[in-house]
């Protein structure tokens, strides 16, 4: 096997091959400057609170329309920081490679990691590489962790959500999940589906900076989709939630794909969406702030918080005025999409 073309167990063995892989491929592709790597990164942080998060990525396929596992691994962690009211500062990057994985593919993924991080103005400051025997992973798994500095005045929390608050989303539902599933099932549509995978820190900071504590809570509706996030909020805040079906932004092709496979877009994963709960009098300004950003063109108020309840429910008012419950998704119908 050619050591220049595919990953071998020795690439994770701690010797020359591994050092070469890190210094010649991983570090430069990810935007690193120094190959004098130390055991831990030392970074300057501003005064105030730090946010810290981690996420692992096992998406299949590794490359999809609108992104790849690399872009996803940066956006996912940046977004977890962003919705928590933090300005992302630095990420770690851990790769678990399967023996036999093509180095050319790895390079493509690393390039996307570098570009995405650079655009998000966040540095990759530390990392790790492991190689497992063929059959013990599926090409490549990635873990990223990240730290960010909490924006002054940002105080998101379930306990601050009260009756009357408005529920917002920055755009269409389910684009990522349906893209992955369609690609996996080999479904083709006239206009191809595209994942919404994107870093959302500019959208979230706009709201936190302009509206301060009128922003009650934010979360990115990834696995389980908007339905999961709203159910989590309802239970944690002990409130009812009502959403309006006609207000939900949906892409027509994505909707057609979901109908064909029998899925409800409320349950489908997003990777470039944020759900925000804001005070009612701040909703119009929030929508204005989002719509003036490319990632928020189709932002909309999708519902409202109802009064507190011991049995909090999320309900949908349908297009014809009917009501139904939106359950916490349960299924394994959506395997490995992030």
């Amino acid at each position, binding site marked *: 096997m050619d050591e220049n073309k595919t990953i071998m167990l020795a690439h994770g063995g701690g010797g020359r091959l591994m050092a070469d892989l890190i210094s010649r491929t991983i570090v430069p592709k990810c935007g690193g400057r120094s190959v004098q790597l130390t055991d831990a990164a030392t970074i300057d942080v501003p005064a105030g609170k730090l946010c810290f998060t981690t996420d692992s990525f096992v998406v299949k396929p590794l490359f999809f329309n609108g992104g790849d596992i690399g872009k996803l691994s940066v956006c996912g962690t940046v977004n977890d920081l962003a919705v928590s009211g933090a300005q992302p500062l630095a990420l770690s990057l851990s790769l678990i490679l399967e023996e036999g994985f093509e180095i050319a593919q790895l390079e493509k993924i690393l390039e996307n990691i570098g570009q995405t991080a650079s655009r998000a103005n966040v540095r990759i400051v530390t990392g790790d590489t492991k190689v497992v025997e063929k059959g013990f992973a599926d090409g490549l798994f990635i873990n990223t962790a990240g730290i960010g500095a909490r924006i002054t005045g940002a105080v998101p929390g379930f306990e601050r959500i009260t009756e009357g608050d408005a529920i917002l989303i920055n755009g269409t539902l389910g684009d990522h999940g349906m893209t992955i599933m369609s690609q996996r099932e080999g479904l083709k549509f006239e206009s191809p589906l595209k994942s919404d995978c994107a870093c959302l820190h500019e959208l979230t900071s706009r709201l936190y900076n302009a509206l301060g504590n009128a922003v009650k809570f934010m979360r990115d509706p990834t696995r389980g989709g908007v339905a999961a996030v709203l159910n989590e909020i309802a239970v944690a805040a002990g409130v009812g939630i009502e959403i309006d079906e006609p207000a939900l932004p949906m892409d027509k092709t994505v909707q057609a794909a979901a109908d064909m496979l029998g899925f409800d877009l409320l349950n489908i994963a997003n990777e470039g969406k944020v759900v925000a709960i804001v005070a009612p009098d701040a909703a119009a300004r929030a929508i204005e702030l989002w719509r003036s950003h490319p990632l928020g063109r189709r932002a909309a108020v999708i519902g409202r918080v109802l009064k507190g309840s011991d049995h909090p429910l999320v309900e949908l008012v*349908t297009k014809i005025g009917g009501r139904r419950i939106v359950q916490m998704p349960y299924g394994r119908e959506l395997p490995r999409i992030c």
Partner: protein
Amino acid sequence: MLERVEQAKQTIQQACTRMDRPIQIMEVCGTHTVAIFRHGIRSLLPPQIKLLSGPGCPVCVTDQGYIDIVLELAGRDDVILATYGDMMRVPGRAGTLERLHKPEIKVVLSTDDALALAQKHPDKTVVFAAVGFETTTPASAVAVADAASSNLHNFCILSGHKLVVPAMQALLGAKNDKIDAFMCPGHVSVILGSDAYKPVAERFHKPCVVAGFEAVQIMEGIAAICKQMAEGRGEVESVYGAAVTPQGNRTAQAIIDNMFEPYDGPWRGLGFIPGGSLRLRPRYQRFDALHRFGISEIPAEELGGCQCGRVLCGLIDPPQCPLFARKCTPDSPIGPCMVSTEGACSAWYKYGKH
């Protein structure tokens, strides 16, 4: 659209005022069952109207004996089992296809994919678990025809195909007084044609209304049924517009008829329905998995404790089953109505309070 919904609501209300008893409507299509929940249709109807979910989900009506044969064949080393995804998690006596963890069990989206498997693996026999009503049967028939014309000897189907109309007749013939009318399946009716329901409407004097799957079409279907009942009529009617003709798709009907013959096969919860199941005609017997593997027939079996059969007959709503949402959930289903996304139990679980 909202005006049409309002109009339908008014018609329904007027009919309810004239009738002083409950109106019980059975939908015979899993897609209708799900759509009724998704659109919140029940919340718009007077309490007098009761919607029952009938035997309209292909996986749900598939008998336990069939599932066990599928599991048995899937366990053989010389077989690749190709199946629609829903079947993967239906429990049989020997577990589920999913739990067999065999790479030779393949989920396919079409019969073309199953044929391609047979071409790719000439050393194995590909068995396609062919279930469904008149909507999926033509695809199975075409696959067998293709296999015959291209001498693809390592392909066969295990036919679990079923016919909708005999099931409707069996339900009414069993003196099921819970059914006042049928909302007939949209997709199946595109193939069958609305005239196919005439024997049901005429013999039992029950309204049979074909409806589409949009919220407004379902509301108009219910309104048409209520109007017929209030006027003492029991006729065939379609509110699905141009998609459904009285005669249906003659080409698809001919394809089915050329390849399959009706016989008295087992249905879950309904037993053996006269002429309710389809098997390959004798001239295509070599593509019949039963014939190829020397299995004499699909036995009728029931799974203990599971009330899916009674749910499918409209005798109980899913929450009345003691297993519902307790031992039987979508994550760990006991009966097929909880497995299939179009199953009544799955829909009640997903959209209801519990």
